[in-house]
């Protein structure tokens, strides 16, 4: 199609996943140059079997919010961050979000470790590279990343970083770790 072109501006996408209240929106807001925007998706026939609307007959659509932010890396190259919707019933949206994504940062709160299991399973199954970022909440007990790795039953290649998503440098570091991980995974594949 003539009006479709992909030459000048380039956009890449990173997902931010993890359980409810783990700091996804905060991470997006900390590094984004626009304040976190929210976008909504109407549930259509895709949600049949996922959304149980049997007892709410008048409700045929619902909305799900996801956060996103933008970072202009250089002229013509923008990075978009998408916070994945937290609830399990919105898995169908993850498939779309994954399309063309570089990888994912899975945020973990060590006090509620099991909240991130679903995200890890999902990205492992999709074969999308991810890293674990342990968000250091005030008052939460610090855990050695090695213990976190064992608790999450993670492959040795998956990087684990400890971060404070409220700190810009710390959030940046988590993103850089992910892209470096993607890069090294790629060189392993082509080697």
């Amino acid at each position, binding site marked *: 199609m003539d*009006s*479709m*072109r*992909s*030459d*000048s*501006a*380039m*956009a*890449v*996408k990173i997902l931010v996943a993890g359980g409810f209240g783990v700091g996804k929106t905060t991470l997006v807001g900390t*590094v984004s140059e*626009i304040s976190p*925007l*929210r*976008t*909504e*998706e*109407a549930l*259509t026939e895709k949600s049949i079997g996922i959304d149980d609307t049997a007892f709410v007959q008048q409700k045929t*659509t619902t*909305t799900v919010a996801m956060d*996103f932010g*933008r*970072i202009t*890396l*250089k002229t013509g*190259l*923008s*990075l*978009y961050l*998408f916070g994945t919707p937290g609830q399990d019933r919105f898995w169908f949206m993850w498939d*779309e*979000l994954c*399309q*063309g*994504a*570089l990888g994912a940062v899975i945020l973990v709160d060590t006090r509620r470790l099991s909240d991130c299991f679903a995200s890890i399973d999902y990205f492992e199954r999709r074969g*999308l590279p991810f890293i674990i970022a342990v968000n250091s909440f005030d008052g939460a007990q610090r855990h050695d990343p090695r213990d976190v790795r064992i608790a999450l039953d993670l492959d040795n290649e998956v990087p684990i970083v400890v971060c404070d998503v409220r700190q*810009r440098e710390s959030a*940046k570091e988590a*993103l*850089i770790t992910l*892209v*470096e991980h*993607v*890069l090294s995974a*790629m*060189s392993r594949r082509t080697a």
Partner: protein
Amino acid sequence: MEPPEHEWVDEAAGPVVRSYAVTGGRTQHTGSDFDLIAIIESADALPADTLVLGPELITIVEICRSSLSVAEVASELDLPVGIVRVLLGDLLDHGLIVVRRPAPVAQFPNERILKDVIDGLHAL
């Protein structure tokens, strides 16, 4: 006197018109698929008959004079992405917007782009 507790007014009451009314009931646009991070830009010259466009379409053309991603357009319009895709398809049919698809990173990973991303993040 305290106002009644369950009175929903304005935004709390939800949209007056059901979401897909603005697309004439269509949930999909035939032919075009808009990625969330595809960049939309208004075409340079607008034809004279833009008056026939609905208010949502005119808003999109106006906000996309400086380029915006599909996700940002949806957020600006406060409409679900599915609906915005249908509207964008209409605008594309009329030649009123130009679409730049995102770099196909996942399918054809490009080392140079990844290094650019890392450098860009370091420089923030």
